[in-house]
């Protein structure tokens, strides 16, 4: 194989156009950051890049082709996940307007890193072999390590960055080690090759493969913040600049789940019987841990972090059943999750900037009377996350549960039900704060400390002092919130389009 003359691989430039677009965009934005004049174009450029990429991706809708010597494969799953990531990134850009972190890092760098992360996600969603997979996952993570730390003034920001880096690297090291074993066991780094290798080499149920699967799933579970590998989630979510948190909450999860599905369903398809129950147990654990963990949180970002853990548990169900419906339900849920979270985070950002409470729940007290335009989105998103009807959340749960029951994992479905029940306790607490308790803004205009010192776990540290008392009215915060909430409800009433979308994505794997 080696030695003979070099034969350049056929590169389908149309196919990798999205990737190229992102790369180019990244470089351009970086450049723009250099000169003070062009600096403020950076957000615009970033939006442009994302738009272009989205367009290119949509252009490839429904054609499943593998690119560049089988390193990548652009199919509906990849596209749908990439689109989710891009949408999330887009919102993040909106939320980052006037965000201190962006200033600290310098516009150019900030958005370049964001785009870089998106690039990683797109690659990850399309990855077809272990090497690409690993590179992509790092391309996804490393910018995030940095972005978390970009609000250099907030100790919490640095802390979260470092924590994320350390645990993250530990995770990826484990993942890598697992990959090594899988490669060793099957002699191939291609997903297809692995599946093939497992069968022909008679490696089915072989310890070598199994240990590989175990370690790899640790790494993936870490990225998707499945308990007990979730512990970074609340801390990092709380410490990171809120726009970045929203990005991590949705996009990272989506991309990681995409590769999770691909890797397990395609590469480890033959081993399904071995890993199903294992993952199911993980799912159950994170449902419980996430939901009970969120109960007593007073920092909204932290609360959303824990709820993210629980939600990840639900979504893992879609992988557990390893069926087409499972994958579709996963994609559906991810899409729904995107909108629910965006609405919530947009509101959090707004309140963070206009109240002295940071992301503390006191910040949304009496919001219903004060700023309905923010209260409704947050309300809807909470109801949706709690899986109440007439929201996308309900349909998503319905979809997942249907997949689970069909895959005869009813017990996990019951877990989801019970978990949801617990989750009401904290989602509704937020709603109650908004509608059923008087506003506290009046009493606490002085400082966060006015009504007793802010609890330690709350993110209400004075660096988060109001940077923009009018934030609650800014279009770039209200519009995303309202829009996302609207879509959440719309998809709860007319889910058919998204269902079709998801079914396509699911079908592309089987």
């Amino acid at each position: 194989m080696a030695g003979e003359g070099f034969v350049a691989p056929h590169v389908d430039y149309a196919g990798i156009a999205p990737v190229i677009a992102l790369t180019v965009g990244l470089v351009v934005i970086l450049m723009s950051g250099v000169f003070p004049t062009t600096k403020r174009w950076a957000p615009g450029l970033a939006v442009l890049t994302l738009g272009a990429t989205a367009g290119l991706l949509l252009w490839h809708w429904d054609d499943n082709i593998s690119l560049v010597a089988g390193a990548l494969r652009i199919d509906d799953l990849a596209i749908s996940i990439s689109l989710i990531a891009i949408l999330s990134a887009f919102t993040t850009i909106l939320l980052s307007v006037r965000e201190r972190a962006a200033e600290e890092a310098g516009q150019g760098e900030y958005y370049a890193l964001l785009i870089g992360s998106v690039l990683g996600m797109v690659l990850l969603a399309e990855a077809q072999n272990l090497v690409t997979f690993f590179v992509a996952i790092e391309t996804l993570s490393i910018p995030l390590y940095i972005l978390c730390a970009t609000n250099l003034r907030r100790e919490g920001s640095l802390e979260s960055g470092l924590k994320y880096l350390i645990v993250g690297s530990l995770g990826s090291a484990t993942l890598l080690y697992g990959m090594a074993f899988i490669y060793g066991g099957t002699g191939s780094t291609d997903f297809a090759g692995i599946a093939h290798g497992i069968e022909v080499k008679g490696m089915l149920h072989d310890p070598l493969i199994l240990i590989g699967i175990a370690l790899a799933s640790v790494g993936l579970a870490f990225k998707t913040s499945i308990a007990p590998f979730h512990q970074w989630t609340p801390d990092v979510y709380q410490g990171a600049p809120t726009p970045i948190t929203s990005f991590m909450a949705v996009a990272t999860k989506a991309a990681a789940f995409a590769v999770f599905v691909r890797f397990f369903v395609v590469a480890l398809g033959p081993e399904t019987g071995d890993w199903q129950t294992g993952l199911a147990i993980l799912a159950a654990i994170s449902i419980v841990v996430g939901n009970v963990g969120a109960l007593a949180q007073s920092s909204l970002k932290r609360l959303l972090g824990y709820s993210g853990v629980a939600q990840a548990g639900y979504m893992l169900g879609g992988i557990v059943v390893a069926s087409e419906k499972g994958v579709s339900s996963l994609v559906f849920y991810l899409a729904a999750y995107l909108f629910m979270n965006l609405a919530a985070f947009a509101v959090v950002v707004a309140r963070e900037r206009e109240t002295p409470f940071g992301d503390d729940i006191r910040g949304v007290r009496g919001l219903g009377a004060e700023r309905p335009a923010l209260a409704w989105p947050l309300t809807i998103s909470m109801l949706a996350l709690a899986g109440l009807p007439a929201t996308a959340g309900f349909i998503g749960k319905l979809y997942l549960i249907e997949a689970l029951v069909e895959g005869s994992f009813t017990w996990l479905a019951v877990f989801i039900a019970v978990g949801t029940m617990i989750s009401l306790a904290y989602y509704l607490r937020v709603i109650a704060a908004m509608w059923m308790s008087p506003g506290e803004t009046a009493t606490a205009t002085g400082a966060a400390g006015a009504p007793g010192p802010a609890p330690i776990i709350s993110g209400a540290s004075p660096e988060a002092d109001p940077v923009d008392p009018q934030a609650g009215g800014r279009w770039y915060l209200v519009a995303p919130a309202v829009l996302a909430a609207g879509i959440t409800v719309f998809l709860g009433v007319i889910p058919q389009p998204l269902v079709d979308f998801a079914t396509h994505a699911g079908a592309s794997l089987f």
Partner: protein
Amino acid sequence: MSATAWAWLVLLFPLAGSILIALGFRRTSWRFAGIVGTGAIALAFLCGIVALINLLGESPDARHHASSLWEYASVAGLQIKLGIYVDPLSVFMVLVVTGVSTLIHLYSFGYMQSDAGYHRFFSYLNFFVFSMLLLVLAGNFVLLIVGWAFVGFASYALISFWYRRTTATRAGMKAFVINVVGDIGLVLAAFLIFQHLGTFEYTEVFAKAPHVFHANQWSVTAICLLLLVGAFAKSAQLPLHTWLPDAMEGLTPVSSLIHAATMVTAGVYLIARTHVLFVLAPTAADIAAFVGLATLLVAASIALVMTDLKRAIAYSTMSQIGYMVVGVSIGAYSAGMFHLMTHAFFKALLFMAAGSIIAAMANEQNIDKMSGFGKAMRFTSVTMLCGGLALAAFPFTSGFFSKDEILAYASARGGMYLIFTILGYFGALLTAIYTFRLIFRVLRGEPCAEAQELIDTGHVHHAAPFNPASGEAEDTDIGFPGAEHHIAEQSPPMKVAMGILAFLALFAGFIQVPGVDKAITNFLSPVFSDSPLAAIEPSTGAAWFGLLIGGLVSLAGIGIAYWLYVASPATPRRLQERFAAVHTFLYNKWYFDEAIDILVVRPALAVGRFANRVFERYVIDGAITGGAEETIGRAGAIVRTFQNGIVRTYGLFLVFGAVGLALYFLIQQS
């Protein structure tokens, strides 16, 4: 128009009257209410007469008609029509009810004049008459139950008519709840009947029963016993009688109409109506008879010592109903109904008189405080005497014939049933004694202050209104006992009513005299002809012998009463001291209230308190809700303690997870 059509009219008038008065309470005068109320009942009475005539026009065995307006609730195999059943028995009852009611309405027209709740009173009273008629005319058990409950409600409403008297409301509640117990008995009986006969219609039930059940089969016995629960509750037979004395809280006209003349006799009617079943269940019938007997004696014994005028009469009512129950249970149907009728007359009369006197006493009911009204209130005392004589079965008064006919029948049936005769006469003795105890103590002797005032000034005595039961001052908002009271002497309507009744009390007995005529028996015979017991009949001689004994007993009783309360007034006190224990026992009404209180009421309330204070708090809120919260909260705390912010701990957990997962994957295969 057929008899049934008239029967429907009988039902219609009182109902219409009730609604009319109720709706017009704002705009119309009290006179309007009184006239409409009385008129409606009078019309109903006339319709009853017409129905009777219609019925008499037919051959005896064709004298029963069923008629229904619409399907009330008929699905899934049940069939419940809104239907009535007209036969001699129901017509008889209709006449008694409407007749007496008319007079009592007339009486109330005067008696209630100064009551603010005048409209309400007449509306209720008409509604009661309607319910009572519904009860007697009902064509199936469900409708019977409806009427049954309606009269119960009417009695409740009228007992607690002066609803700011706590005693009154409490008494009303008691009456209602006990009556509901009775209703439940009937409902269960109906279910059982349906289970075996598949219908609720009288005609079908009575037609099928003899073929379906055999004598003393458990099911038919059960049915009869359940029916008896209803009957006893309504007719204040042991042990469900305690509500009746308390019901005397109600207005005197009400006591006389509902709690003497009509409603309380519904139990008797029920037994007579369902005699077919009782014939099939002799055991049940005997039980009924013995309960009746017991009630008869117990009530009479209590009546001996009661110092509250109305309560004393109430106990005598119980005792008299005891006679009727005995009668209809052992088979003396027509005799029972006869006594029902006569009793309606003289007992209503007695209450009216009592009401008149109480009014004169400014609402005081304690006979110890009364005396000498004989002079003060001529008319009242005369009428009261008539009633008393009838009640005491003084020879040739109505009570004399009716009561003794029952006892004569008992002796004629012989065997075990002689007990009823003997004890019946003993009861008669007691009756005579307590009746004349009242009469002597109230009418004779030196006029008391109130009486004197009446004699001197001709004005009814006035006093600050107070509640005789509790002694607390009255809330005069709701009028009566209000500004002025009304006594027969000064109120023509009352006079008329009492006069008519006095006449009836004395002479109504002559329509059924052994050997001479037996109008009632003949009239009712088509109803009871199917019962083998109806055939039994004492010979005229035996009957007259019985009457003789009865007469002597009654005279003896009156004599004793005279000796005790007139000749040597000290004796009663001595007797009291001599038999203190007995006296207190009787005075406390055999401690029935206390017993029920301890056996039923307190336990129920205790359970309630337990459920409220302990179970709800510690089990529902504590264990179930709190437990769940606790567990979840704990779990949350644990999760958060591991979330200690130290990155190395997170690493530790990650590795731990890796180890665990790897272990799982490795062992699941081997």
